[in-house]
């Protein structure tokens, strides 16, 4: 995946570029809004990571400019402003996701990877498959190895999101945001309990588990490596 990081703090930028490289991506960096806009326009990236407060040209205006020019590259906004209302402003400006600082790199990476996959036409598929697990989005039915599995509506949406992003790590915060539409951090780790319930329904009694916990990051749905 080709990623452009527009971040004025050089240390953070070089850390992100290096860490993304280690995760198997190719990342470039730009240190101010003008330079970032130039590069984003000139080259073809899969994801842009843009800090909201940048010298010369602020992050939101870079995004509006790109969107105005017809550039649809997914954008992840980074910001020290983490309140609900700030996020809404960021997304309205044309951002696709919003991550408040300070963030864990694993969270950033997971979000970037999910954004990058958007290009793949997953949205159009009506049936998601991971190994012998099958989810029919229209009939709202789930089967594993041909056997139907009964899921609550919320569990269905949870599984749907995990399978849509199969192979990619999704964090607890992402699940809360996408499945529950909550942008706060519940004090108790409610997501883990939901996940263990879901796991009991889809993995229990099967030899190969599909739902894996990634320590320090979140969860991933994939055939065992």
């Amino acid at each position, binding site marked *: 995946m080709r990623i452009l990081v527009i971040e004025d703090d050089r240390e953070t930028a070089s850390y992100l570029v290096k860490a993304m490289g280690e995760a198997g991506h190719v990342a470039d960096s730009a240190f101010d809004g003008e330079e970032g806009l130039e590069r984003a326009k000139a080259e073809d990236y899969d994801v842009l990571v843009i800090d909201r407060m940048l010298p010369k040209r602020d992050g939101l205006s870079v995004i509006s400019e790109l969107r105005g020019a017809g550039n649809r590259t997914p954008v992840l906004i980074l910001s020290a402003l*983490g*309140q*609900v*209302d700030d996020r*809404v402003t960021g997304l309205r400006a044309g951002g696709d996701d919003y991550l*408040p600082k*300070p963030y*864990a790199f694993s969270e950033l990476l997971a979000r970037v990877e999910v954004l990058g996959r958007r290009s793949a036409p997953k949205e159009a598929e009506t049936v998601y498959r991971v190994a012998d697990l099958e989810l029919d989005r229209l009939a709202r039915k789930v089967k594993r190895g041909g056997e139907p599995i009964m899921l609550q509506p*919320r569990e269905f949406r949870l599984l749907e999101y995990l399978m849509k992003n199969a192979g990619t790590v999704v964090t607890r915060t992402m699940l809360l945001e996408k499945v*529950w539409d*909550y*942008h*706060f*951090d*519940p*004090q*108790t780790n*409610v997501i883990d*309990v*939901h996940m263990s*319930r879901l796991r009991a329904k889809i993995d229990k009694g099967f030899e190969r588990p599909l739902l894996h916990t990634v320590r*320090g990051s979140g969860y991933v749905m994939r055939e065992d490596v």
Partner: protein
Amino acid sequence: MSSRAWPRLFRTTAFKLTAIFLAVFTVFAAFLIGYIARNTSDILKSQMADAVDAELQSIELQYDRGGAAWLVRVVELRSAQPGASLYFVTDPAGDRIAGNVETVPASILNESVDAPKIVSYTSRDEKGSQPHSALVRVFEFPDGVRVLVGRDVSEREALVGLVRRSLMLTAALMVALGLIAWTFVSRRVLKRIDSIAETSNRFVAGDLSGRLEVTGTGDEFDRLAESLNAMLTRIERLMLGLKQVSDNIAHDLKTPLTRMRNRVERALTTGHSEPDYREALHATIDEADQLIRTFNALLLIARAEAGSPDTEFDTFDAADVARDVVDLYEPVAEEAGVALRFEECAPVMAHAHRELVSQALANLVDNAVKYAGEGSGTPEVVIGVSEKDGAVEFRVADNGAGIAEADRGRVTERFVRLEESRSKPGAGLGLSLVSAVAQLHGGELQLCDNAPGLAAILRLPGAAQQGAA
């Protein structure tokens, strides 16, 4: 009144207003009096003219009856009567032959005037005195004898004098009254403004408890004082909140920071192998995450307390929000062996910040699930939504140990945790946030005894009340 106060008195709004009103009323009074005077004078003049005409006609009749000699006799007779008109009869040569008038301007006799005219004359009774004014008509008989009949107009002049005097008197009276009103108003108003300025200055200087005096008369100043007092109370609360936040940061953020630092230091000095370091680093990251979480919660509370523009408010079904939160916590409750139940109800519309209300409700449910197990019976948490007097009420009730009445006020403060052992996770910010969210919406958080357990009631304005929020 101090010497300094005088020039200030002239700069006041009260002074300007008084001056304007004074000017307006003076013009108005002058117009009114002038108008009346003028009309009266016109009426008098026309009455006089009629009288002169009538007199002249009767003189003509007398002349027709007895000629000039008879005329002279009649004129002499009439002149002698009290309140007589003015008469002046001349022979064809223009010499005076009868009448009570000594002299008149010669020109008036040479022209036979049809309309009455004002001329000056001197009376026969008081020779050598000032000439008077009179309204006269002259008639010339065919034999050249001329007769002038007139009425003295001093009556009219007296009226003009009366009007002038009353005008001046009125003006003087108005100026005097205006001055009194101005002094009264400006001194009274200035006194209250001074007191407002003084209280504000004391507030600025740091005395946050000072409030403006409300006299209880319900006038504009009272209303102003009341709104300013409400503002001062809010400022005081924000200031206290800010102070509390910094105190809390000092106390409750420094402790975990110290712990984190110690752990890293110990890992550096005593760690021997990679697993040691890894373990220490993982623990450090966990602790840092917890710190960030605490920090975010503090910021969120501060932000909610400071108030957010109502543009981010939505109208939504409160029951829906509650159902979602219950749905989120249901597995956690089940794992903890707590029966979590939502009392189904019809939609209850609220106008609020949906995200913040969800979070507040999540905090209440989180607490209830955490502490329900401490009671004696089967742990149970019941969540209900209802509409009461146009307000939306979220009720989260558990049957745990509850909170002693004395502690209920305290638990909504930041970082307050009742269990000294701190065996349950959490930073002690949950209820502070709920309380801040309630405040942001102009609602309230009430903690009641559920006998046994605790019932937390979050009251928010309903959709119908959105204007009042």
